[in-house]
């Protein structure tokens, strides 16, 4: 079985790549062959599944171990599994969160602790709008848009791991209770989120005044 998976790995291994790595080009080919788009969460789920060290890179040992573990030895079987993950992302919120948290780790520029603002925003747009999300814009409040607007207003600072993890929880709560009943200034939310709450409140006041 290992042998078959290894063959698949070699198929996408490019000449210029390091011996045990599939580089960005091979990775894109592989994802295309298993019908995974680059702008869907499933792409990140596959990366998490194969324990990719960074975005767009597969390492041999982890690749083999992951697929063998799922008994997938052919592209067709891998395609099926990718589809399974796609469905799971829509129904299993814990799984979805684990992919979300993994995404932070692989989105950092090497050697940095934070994720750059623009990259973070791209991922949020992906996670909080794709089917299955309960943390995006609601019918009454454009939570995601406001969050991004708020961050832009304060200078597009890099996003910390804590803020990354907490904002998802916060937006889920905010979607459930738009009046912030769950929030308390002395609670454990990161200060940036506290500021966001104040910002939203001010914005709503402004909205009322205009009416």
């Amino acid at each position, binding site marked *: 079985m290992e042998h078959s998976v290894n063959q698949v790995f070699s198929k996408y291994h490019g000449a210029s790549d390091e011996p045990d790595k599939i580089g960005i080009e091979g990775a894109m080919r592989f994802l295309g062959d298993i019908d995974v788009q680059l702008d869907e969460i499933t792409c990140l789920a596959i990366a998490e599944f194969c324990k990719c060290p960074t975005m767009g890179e597969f390492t041999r040992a982890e690749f083999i171990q992951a697929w063998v573990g799922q008994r997938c030895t052919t592209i067709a079987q891998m395609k099926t599994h990718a589809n399974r993950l796609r469905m799971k992302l829509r129904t299993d919120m814990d799984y979805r969160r684990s992919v979300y948290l993994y995404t932070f780790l692989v989105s950092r520029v090497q050697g940095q*602790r934070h994720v750059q603002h623009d990259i973070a925003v791209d991922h949020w747009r992906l996670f909080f709008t794709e089917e299955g999300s309960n943390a995006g814009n609601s019918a009454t409040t454009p939570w995601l848009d406001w969050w991004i607007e708020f961050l832009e207003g304060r200078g597009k600072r890099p996003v910390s791991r*804590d803020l990354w993890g907490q904002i998802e929880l916060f937006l889920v709560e905010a979607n459930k209770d738009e009046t912030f009943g769950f929030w308390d200034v*002395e609670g454990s939310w*990161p200060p940036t989120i506290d500021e966001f709450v104040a910002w939203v409140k001010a914005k709503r006041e402004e909205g009322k005044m205009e009416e």
Partner: protein
Amino acid sequence: MPPPVMPQTPHKDDLEETWSFLESGINSVMHKLEDGVDMKHYMALYTAVHNFCTSQKAVVSNQGLQAHRGGSSAITRSLLQIAQSQEKEKQPLTVAGLITAHLLGEELYKLLGEYLSRHLEEVQQKSTAHTEEALLGFYIREWTRYTTAAKYINHLFSYLNRHWVKREIDEGKKNVYDVYTLHLVKWKDDFFEHVHSKVMDAVLSLIEKQRNGETIEQSQIKSIVDSFVSLGLDENDSKKSTLEVYRHYFQQPFIDATRKYYENESRQFVAENSVVEYMKKAEARLDEEKARVGLYLHSDVTKSLTETCLDVLVTAHSNLLRDEFQVLLNNERQEDLARMYGLLSRIKEGLDPLRGIFEKHVKKAGLAAVEKVNSEGENFEPKLYVDALLQVHSRYQSLVEEAFNGESEFVRSLDNACREFVNRNCIAQANNTKSPELLAKYTDSLLKKGSKAAEESELEEMLVQIMTVFKYIEDKDVFQKFYSKALAKRLVHVSSVSDDAETSMISKLKEACGFEYTNKLQRMFQDIQISKDLNASYKDWQDKVLDDDDRKRMTDAHFHVLGTGFWPLNPPTTAFSAPPEILKTAERFQKFYFDKHNGRKLTWLWQLCKGEMKANYIKNAKVPYTFQVSTFQMAILLLFNEAETLSYTDIEKATNLAPEVLDPNLAIFLKAKVLLASPEGGKPDPSMSFSLNYNFKNKKVKVNLNIQIKSEQKVETDDTHKTIEEDRKLLLQSAIVRIMKSRKKMRHVQLVQEVINQVKSRFPPHVIDIKKNIEALMEKDYIERLEGEEIAYIA
């Protein structure tokens, strides 16, 4: 007078004969006791009782006995029969653990009871002729006669008591008593029951008279009380007395009457008098009633009497009293406040509402005092501010002490109020750290040479007062910062008023805040001490090393070596080329120091150095003037040894001083007319040139030119605030790390709470600031967030 004929002792078997013999004797004890009792007659009576009780024949009267004992149980009856059958064999028998013997006396007991009933009926008849005080007199007379007789009769019947009565009681019979008690029971049933309410009416009207201010015969009431108390018998043990009768027939009506009396009186009094007058009245009444107990009541009444009086006199009017509290506070009526405290402290929760009012009042007074200081302009002396705070505190502290008995709850209210107005008032509002800053500056003004409090003891007292305010300061770290800055200056400039005062202040701070708080301050002292020794050995070194030529051109100097970690001092903000004379001196010392302490680094704090210069160039001066100058000023003036006139640029180049330092110092020289500018007038600027004023004049020979520049002061204060912010961040972060290190895992809320607990002795932290520092530590990977609001320490 003994009876003329000696009566014959009755036949011992004959009940009737025995009783009629006894009755006449008892009767004379009851009625003619004052005539005396003949001993023989008395003995005859005693013997008659004894003989009758020991007679054999009395067994016959068994029938009557049975009838009389209608209520006794079947068991008792059968016991008796067994006893009777045993009688023939003259042997006692033990049945069910009881020794049953045949004892006689029931008939006598019964007849005596009947006699007493007859007697009491007569007494009762006679009593109807009396009312009010006369009735009391009658009651007491009859009571005395009756109880005195009872003692004798009890003795006459002591054989009966010892045998028949004792056995009856041992067998658990109800309604059988020793003869004396029988008297009391009869009195209660046959007389007392008929008259008690009339007697009590008389008692109560007597007490009311006394309350109204009349003089009464108190002993009468006392006797009545004693009588009522005596009538209390324990149902289960006739040898014991209870207060039941007294409580029911005396105490209850007395308390009811008291309540009614004072309800009326206080209602009326309040309607016609001021609250203060009422308080005096109530106070007097409470004392009076307390005294009443001691005079003629039973002490058992104390509790309910006091409760009743408090209820009617205080609780019922407590709202009225409390409404007056603010008025009394406003008018500083200490005595009346004490009176109100005294009254309300005695009722349940009587004082609680006052505490809130008091706290608010003190706070208001504190704010008003600060307001007044503020109205005198922005540049008030720190002393004025601190004095205002102290004055309010001491005024109300003495009120709490004098009027409120120093009660801890009021002390707490005072503390709360003081903490409020000390930390938050119109001067300390925008910047919450103004109070500690002013307090530290005031302390500095006291500890600096030239302060007005010259007396050592007076100074000590003022330091104690400072600690009073310090206790309320929330931002103790701010005080520490300003204090250590000022202390550094006092030490460096040798301007402390006394070492003792400095030490005293530091030990007070240490006592209040702990070793850590004063650690650096103490190290500063040590550095000064070490520097003294260092200078001494430097002198020895110089004596050995220098030659005559060096010595001639030597500058007399003193050095302080101060540890960077302990002193709140920064390197100079300006570049500076020290004049060669100074530089040589500095380098020589440095050489000496590095020989001694290899590897240490010395930074010269030029901005803190100072010296004196002799101005030999001035005409018309008999004694040359001495200028007291900073090292920067020295550098400027020394340039004029080589030239008479120098351009601004010359000076700037030679000294290397930045314009922010150079300009104000030149301005000081111009103002003092040490230098003359051309063109004249205006602030120093690069187009000017300066020359020495040979015609300098001053009243004093020593001229101090080393004046602190205003802008420097402000910068210093701002810097201090900045370092406070930084230090707080560090303090918070180290607290968080310390807590997390020991706890490993902790909920966010708990962590925040724990941090507050740990740092609140230094300053009151905002939760937001704690959260920011938690975030900062997460980013530094000291801690991380787990799911579910939990924080974990990363080792």
